[in-house]
């Protein structure tokens, strides 16, 4: 029971950076923008958060810095892809490379340092309940924030006027523009929300999961986050499911090794990726269902004089 709780907690922690980045990217994509630079935004967020916590000792300021730097990176992408109408795939890849380089440059001198431990939630009484208590009430605040963000994004997209508009510009930007919505401005906002969340995901890595800075520490998580969005068919709650599934498989893989299960470690490492493909095939078979959720204008350039 104790072991199971621990495995679940580890899975949640492994999933959280993915969840932040993916839920942000989901919003950007629902507004019709495909931003492939998630990896770059995450790693810049990671160093921004880390360098700030070293300088100020304030976790809140660090998170703010991560959020801001992620949003700035996203805005840069916006300048390229929205204002200057460069191809989105290429812009995303280019900014990803830029982000990796920038973070390495920024991070020089921070490599030997370590951040203070991140505060954990502790609810007297509740956190002491066996199994559930630890699972539900003993985590760091950002895990709860990530879950809150999923709920908030789901609510905003499905239940509010703002969400309706965001979806509308993602579905048909010409029509949305004709009605009078400011397509480009709204897409900037959606993008920057995505960047902010990616920055937060990066900061989760450098402040909570492994509280230190090392170059390239995101190690491909931005790409996984991108995959999760499509895996989830652009639905917030499915992003949550996907992220936790992915985290779960990663952790189970390590546990099964420690238990002495005889499987090739590298083949085991392929599991999460193969699982994503399989699930993707299963959910995509229903053409109509996918069409209902995939933003129709995703990645298409939009021009209007606004």
């Amino acid at each position, binding site marked *: 029971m104790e072991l199971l709780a621990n495995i679940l907690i580890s899975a949640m922690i492994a999933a959280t950076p993915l969840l932040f980045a993916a839920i942000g990217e989901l919003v950007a994509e629902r507004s019709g923008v495909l931003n492939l630079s998630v990896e770059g935004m995450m790693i810049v967020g990671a160093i921004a958060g880390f360098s700030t916590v070293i300088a100020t000792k304030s976790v809140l300021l660090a998170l703010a810095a991560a959020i801001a730097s992620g949003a700035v990176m996203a805005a840069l992408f916006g300048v390229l892809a929205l204002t200057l109408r460069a191809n989105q795939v290429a812009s995303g890849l280019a900014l990803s490379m830029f982000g990796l380089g920038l973070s*390495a*440059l920024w991070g020089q001198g921070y490599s030997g340092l370590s951040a203070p431990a991140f505060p954990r939630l502790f609810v007297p009484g509740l956190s002491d309940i066996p199994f559930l208590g630890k699972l539900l009430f003993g985590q760091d605040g950002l895990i709860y924030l990530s879950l809150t963000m999923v709920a908030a994004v789901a609510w905003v997209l499905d239940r509010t006027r703002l969400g309706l508009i965001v979806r509308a510009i993602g579905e048909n930007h010409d029509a949305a523009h004709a009605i009078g919505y400011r397509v480009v401005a709204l897409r900037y906002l959606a993008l920057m929300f995505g960047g902010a969340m990616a920055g937060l995901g990066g900061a989760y890595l450098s402040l909570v999961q492994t509280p230190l800075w090392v170059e390239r520490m995101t190690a491909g998580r931005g790409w996984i986050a991108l995959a999760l969005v499509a895996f989830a068919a652009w639905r917030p709650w499915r992003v949550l499911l996907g992220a936790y599934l992915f985290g779960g498989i990663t952790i189970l893989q390590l546990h099964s090794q420690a238990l002495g299960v005889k499987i090739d470690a*590298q083949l085991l490492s*392929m599991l999460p990726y193969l699982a994503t*493909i399989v699930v993707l095939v299963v959910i995509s078979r229903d053409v109509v269902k996918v069409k209902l959720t995939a933003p129709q204008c995703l990645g298409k350039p939009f021009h*209007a004089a606004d």
Partner: protein
Amino acid sequence: MLRLEPRREPSRIMFYVTPFLAIGLTLVAGIVLFAALDKPPLPAMRLIFIEPLTSLRGVAELLVKGTPLILIAIGLAISFRGGVWNIGAEGQFAIGALAGGTVALAFYPTTGWWLLPLMSLAGMAGGAAWAAIPALLRTRFNANEILVSLMLVYVAVLLLSSLVHGALRDPDGLNFPESRLFQTSLPILIEGTRAHVGFLVGLVAVLLSWILLERHVLGFKIKVLGQAPRAARYGGFSEKGLIWFCFLVSGGCAGLAGLFEAAGPVGQLVPALPSGYGFTAIVVAFLGRLNPLGVLLAGLLLALTSIGGETAQIAMSLPSATTAVFQGMLLFFLLAADVLVNYRPRWIAQRSAAADPLARSEAPVGTMQRLPIP
């Protein structure tokens, strides 16, 4: 305020000028960057852009570095023209090297004139087969090819690594994770350098793809599929057939590029063989405006700045991050400047957006701007 107005047709002048404009802007930004880092900026620029071109060795290395980029990007350009978003070239590259390399190792130590062609065929087949997976899943199950091909990159890299640590490991190599050195290698183009015939194959690929895209009905169909999938359907083209074609061609090119790396500069299979060419090639394809000749130039430019970046690193003790940032800026400006081909910047007085008669997205959209609808 500054406003972008769509041109009636793409500007031919801007078409040629923007790359120079972008390079000029990068020079300026680079000078600022290096000055900020307390490194002499002008020599740095010279090291990056000029130095590699001043020696035979540098030029040869330019061809070595450019070959895989060009070969992969050519395949991708065809594929992207058709609106087929194969972004898993890195994985197809790895599997191509693996398949071709396995052929060499299977015949070890036998060799002959037939071996290299056989390896190349296997490399192409391997890359195409790996690309066939997203093709099948897209055409049969409607699965998003961006996602599937991306996921398969990780699987391919792990597979290569796993086999090189295991079955394909050099039996005389003290169990280190690398295969034997191949018994054959690509013929060298320039004596005393590493430039190999792969570059010529790359040039042939450029030519063939130009004929395909500009002179052949199949290329026409691919472009229609990319720009107006619905029209393609009504036109009676086999959408699935074209998707398969795009995937197989781009996968085959990437696979061949992988084999060339393994059988050329490296000479064996190593886990680190896939070192990012597949992703960089995507940027190359777009910088080249999905046009074969453009891809050739863009591939060489990126190769130049990579090699120049290394030169600068060595000569000035720069951290490698500096060149990464510099290259990122170059890509940024190149992509940004392209806007001038299709749009005209205009300084105009404040005007209400809704009243603007041009405010519709009927703007001419160049092929390079059509994009991924999963």
